[in-house]
């Protein structure tokens, strides 16, 4: 039933510190920063998968690693049935054509010394597509398609506003007619009124060109609006995946629940709403907590959470298709978790089946 375009399996990206030659000679152990630590998800053909999390949770690194813009330290990614990390030569060039990326910051992701035309046509030139004249007309076509005027093609990035620059970034990503686009926080640097324009544009382009998106964002209302399914990340791990509507209506993981609870709604009824804010900060990925990584902030944490790391448990619908994966002991009614002691910071919760 499912038709995945991208399958990510146990993806790992560790950075090492104290790893210089001198450190090795003096015998110092390298310390690792586990930016992405065993992330698995699939992106179905034609869907938009949201990757959500707070800053530093590894969502952008995941996006860049699965495109091979960074070398992974473990795991595998398959794109349309082929192993991305094993590709070389022609295959890799082909993959680069079929998978594009739109970056977060429209100010630093465009070369200030290239005109809009050069920026948009550069991928075509790199992949040697068409003649110079073809590339020029293709750039003009893309420019119009993303809602800019082709009369502006010879302008430099500094002559465009933030929203217009992001449109150029999108045009560049579309130049090679990719199947798959990673959108790394494409609207977070924009004002709300412009953000809505870009979201509508991405929506239109998806249906027009049959695109598959991996949409990385921290803004939950944007994610709710544009994605079909969501993967929620915390400290380098995916804690919950599932259809967007299900997750937003009935979050399964305590972290997802807390995230949703924290977002201030733009509505008069929001006034004075008191949020049970999560205590503390996100722990450092240099030294992530043992057991469940969320246990230091989780309002439901118990001793069991400190000892073992919960594995994602899949829930399937009646047709046997996997719907959700939640990495929390609370999904298992028979787990030892229920018998263990609540941790000190956890909220007292009345639990009927707490025996």
């Amino acid at each position, binding site marked *: 039933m499912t038709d995945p375009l991208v399958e990510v399996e146990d993806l790992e990206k560790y950075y090492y510190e104290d790893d210089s030659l001198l450190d090795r000679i003096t015998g110092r152990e390298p310390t690792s920063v586990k930016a992405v630590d065993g992330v698995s998800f699939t992106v179905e053909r034609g869907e938009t998968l949201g990757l959500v999390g*707070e*800053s530093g949770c590894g969502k952008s690194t995941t996006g860049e690693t699965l495109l091979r813009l960074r070398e992974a330290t473990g795991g595998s990614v398959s794109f349309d049935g082929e192993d991305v990390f094993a590709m070389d030569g022609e295959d890799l060039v082909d993959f680069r054509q079929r998978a594009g990326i739109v970056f977060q910051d429209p100010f630093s992701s465009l070369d200030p010394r290239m005109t809009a035309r050069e920026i948009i046509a550069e991928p075509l030139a790199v992949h040697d597509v068409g003649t110079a004249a073809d590339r020029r007309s293709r750039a003009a076509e893309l420019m*119009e*398609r993303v*809602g*800019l*005027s082709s*009369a*502006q093609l010879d302008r430099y990035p500094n002559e465009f*506003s*933030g*929203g*217009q620059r992001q*449109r150029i970034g999108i045009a560049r990503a579309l130049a090679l007619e990719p199947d798959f686009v990673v959108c790394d926080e494409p609207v977070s640097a924009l*004002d*709300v*009124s*412009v*953000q*809505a*324009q870009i*979201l*509508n*544009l991405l*929506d*239109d382009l998806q249906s027009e060109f049959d695109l598959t998106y991996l949409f990385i964002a*921290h803004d*939950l*209302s*944007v994610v*709710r*609006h*544009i994605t079909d399914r969501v993967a929620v990340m915390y400290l380098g791990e995916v804690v919950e995946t599932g259809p*967007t*509507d299900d997750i*937003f209506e009935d979050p399964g993981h305590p972290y997802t629940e*807390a*995230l*949703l*609870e*924290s*977002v*201030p*709604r*733009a*509505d*008069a009824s*929001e*006034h*004075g*709403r*008191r*949020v049970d*804010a*999560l205590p503390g*900060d*996100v722990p450092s990925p240099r030294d992530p907590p043992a057991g469940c990584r969320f246990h230091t902030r989780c309002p439901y944490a118990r001793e069991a959470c400190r000892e073992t790391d919960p594995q994602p448990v899949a829930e399937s619908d009646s047709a046997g298709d996997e719907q959700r994966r939640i990495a929390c002991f609370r999904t298992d009614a028979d787990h030892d978790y229920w018998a263990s002691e609540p941790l000190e910071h956890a909220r007292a919760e009345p639990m009927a089946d707490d025996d």
Partner: protein
Amino acid sequence: MAANSGRDLLRVEDVSTRFFTEEGQINAVEEVSFTVREGEVFGIVGESGSGKSVTALSLVDLVESPGRVTDGEIWFRNADLAEAVRDDHPGAVDGEFVDLRQMPDGVRRSLRGPSFSMIFQDPMSSFNPSVTVGEQIAEAVEVQRRASANPRSTRSRSQGYGLGRLLLDTVVPTRSYVSRESRERAVDLLDQVGIPDPAERADEYPHQFSGGMLQRAMVAQALAGEPDVLIADEPTTALDVTIQAQILNLLDDLQAETGMSIVLITHNLGVIARMCDRVSVMYAGEIVERGSLDALFENPAHPYTQGLLGSIPDLEDPAARLQPIEGSVPDLVDAEMDDRCYFADRCPKAMTECLDKPPEFPVDGDDEHAAKCVLADHDYVESEALDDDYFASPLEGMGDTVEGEADD
């Protein structure tokens, strides 16, 4: 919730701030008027470049060159100050109110801390990276302590920062400006804003703090002078949502504790909705609509406010399509601003009369709720509508155009 019915604490009348740059005069804030009441949270919302931060800086007279507050009055209720300056500046006193714009620099400076205090958007760049957090807060406390000994003098607080002092410190480095009491008070303040182990954290440097913790520390610093008005300029924009929730809770608690007024400046309508009693919406340097929270969110009169609200994806109900405002915010160079409604070029309901600057109209006869838009006064007349391409200048090409309109 009904708007707080406290007395007026601050009356801002027709304040304009301009920047005189090489490209020309920038009208960052244009005849802005509002009042802030005792014990309320007053919100200013707008997109980047709308002039909301400059408005805040204008209140506390922190606009830097080439900018200048060129016009307007800022009336602040302070009975003691009114008494003290009545003789020297009779024109600047109205009952318990004092017009801060007519006060000499020294007096205005003496109000920063005990009367006005400010927290900024980016905690990482607002602290000195080479001085411990505790020391920086203690310094703010010390300044206030010295000032309260001699309220109207700026000299007393800067004493110890002179040349002689500098030389002395070089020779005897242990002598310090900050007293032990101020350090203790700094630790208390850190505790008050919810920093765990405040005594130990006080000796750490800003880079050892997380963004949320540093924002708390900045709030602590702002509280050093026990201000009447706390101006919070995008206090949670640099923070993640779970940390944002913590900081909003903190501001809420502190306000309840101290009874101060908060001027909250943000682009996030959700933050506005959670915190504010009354709200002003800014666009292109002007307040285009003001009113109570309910009035503004339930019954927005200005097309810009409506557009802002329509641009936000709803967390509870994902609508099929967002209704963005087309185009982008104008830059505010004086020479390029016609004397018209600044929003007319993006407004779906622009009419010929919008080519004249609209005055402020009350909405539905409500004194509190007003909008700078003719639609608040009478209905849209289709026959008066401006052509779609009225504002498109032939030389400029098109701005951010909609799909379908780009085929010129």
